[in-house]
């Protein structure tokens, strides 16, 4: 009855390592293949926007809610965007209940910066009363099934959900905000797409599965915007990267980001 989950033998790990040396992977992919990506949007009608993303067996659900609230005092004319990721124990025996841990916070903050720094969302257009009332956009991402590369699955989910988000138009009279029935889509200026690499035995492979992540020494996530510019990078894991491997990864990531952008 009891299944043996996530117990990876050293033989299996060694197998993965030796395959990678030959440019091969345990699931038959080449080193720079993504797994199949499926994106369904509008899956949660009560959310202002939503998307379910499958990346192989990894499954995430992103939902967008919008509320009216105060702006940050240093950006009084801008909407507020908040990204939050929940690693719920339903998704993996590796996850525990409780507030987000460092791994979830890291991904959330990279996506958050990606949205903010690329000016992907026109935040000024979501200001209602400057300095007083703006739209607060919550991007909440739930991991539903964890088979590796939560970085890319989550960032694709966030972007796909934002692209389908519609919020109510508003009317301001005498400082009072009236919510209208008419909806407006978010104005999205660019589509940042991330590509995550795992380093195994000095080789880089993209979109690592969970078992590959368990063998990897380090991780590198590289995000490009719609113009092909770099817009975010984040190294993780207890290993290091050579300068050459980083430059090579940047070039691969740019190509991959264009392929994926087409699908969203």
């Amino acid at each position, binding site marked *: *009855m009891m299944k043996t989950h996530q117990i990876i033998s050293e033989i299996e790990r060694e197998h993965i390592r030796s395959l990678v040396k030959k440019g091969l992977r345990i699931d038959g992919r080449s080193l720079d293949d993504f797994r199949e990506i499926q994106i369904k949007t509008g*899956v*949660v009608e*009560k959310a202002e926007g939503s998307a379910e993303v499958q990346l192989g067996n990894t499954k995430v659900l992103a939902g967008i809610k919008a509320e009216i609230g105060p702006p940050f005092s240093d950006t009084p004319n801008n909407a507020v965007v908040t990204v939050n990721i929940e690693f719920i124990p*339903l*998704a993996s025996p590796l996850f525990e209940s409780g*507030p987000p841990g460092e791994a979830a916070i890291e991904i959330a903050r990279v996506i958050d910066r990606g949205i903010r720094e690329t000016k992907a969302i026109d935040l000024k257009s979501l200001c209602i009363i400057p300095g007083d009332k703006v739209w607060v956009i919550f991007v909440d991402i739930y991991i539903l099934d964890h088979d590796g590369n939560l970085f890319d699955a989550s960032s694709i989910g966030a972007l796909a959900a934002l692209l389908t988000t519609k919020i109510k138009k508003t009317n301001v009279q005498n400082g009072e905000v009236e919510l209208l029935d008419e909806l407006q889509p978010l104005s999205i200026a660019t589509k940042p797409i991330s590509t995550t690499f795992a380093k195994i035995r000095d080789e880089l492979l993209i979109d690592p599965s969970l078992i590959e992540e368990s063998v990897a020494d380090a991780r590198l996530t590289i995000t490009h915007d719609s113009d092909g510019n770099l817009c975010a990078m984040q190294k993780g894991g207890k290993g290091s990267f050579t300068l050459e491997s980083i430059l090579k990864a940047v070039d691969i990531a740019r190509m991959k980001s264009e392929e994926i952008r087409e699908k969203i």
Partner: protein
Amino acid sequence: MTRINQNSYERLIDENEIRIDGRKLDELRPINIEVGILTNAYGSALLHHGKNKILAAVFGPRELHPRHLALPDRALVRCEYRMTTFSVEERKSPAPSRREIELSKVIRESLEPAIFTHLYPRTSVDVFIEVLQADGGTRCDGITAASTALADAGVPLRDLVVACAVGKVEGHILLDLDDIEDKKGEADMPIAILPRNKEVTLLQMDGQLSREEFQRALDLAIKGCEQIHEMQKEALRKKYSEIQEEVLEELNEFSEKEENQD
């Protein structure tokens, strides 16, 4: 803090006893159950019921952490009922609310009578329910989905557990209240049963019911549960169509044998 339109004081049930969404008084919302949709969980089920979308996953029987919680004579059943932040009109905080804590408890207590926990001493059976979208009756759907996921996980069960809510709205006893009927109605009564022997494993009630109304509501709830139970079995059959007959028969035989030994 929910944004209910204060102007919508139209009646919820018309003169022909038809509800606002077109249902009859004793009619369920459409239900769809899919089984085994997650790869990490030992068993899983996704339940669509009206606008409700409920995902349940089971991990276990498995080794229990922290170990000092282990029970020497049976498995520890644990349950977490949670709602996604975007499942409701107004964004919910991700921190568990008092409501989620209470519902996790009563759902666990509604499932435990069905589980042969003494077969797996010192282990845990962990049930996780995530409400992806909520429109009334999510605790019942959580129970129905969770017991289906338990069966999918192969956890030995006395019976499936199936739940639905009844209530009173504008003087009528109704089956399967949606959110607006729940909020505006005079009474709400979620109930879970073991369908084979009609033992009640969840019973909550709020509002106002006479003795006679209570009995009618109870009868109606049983009928609703029986209908949902058929869909549960169908969903499990669909997944295990090849080995359908064997599995269900074995399950029944096993349950009866265990029941006799109890």
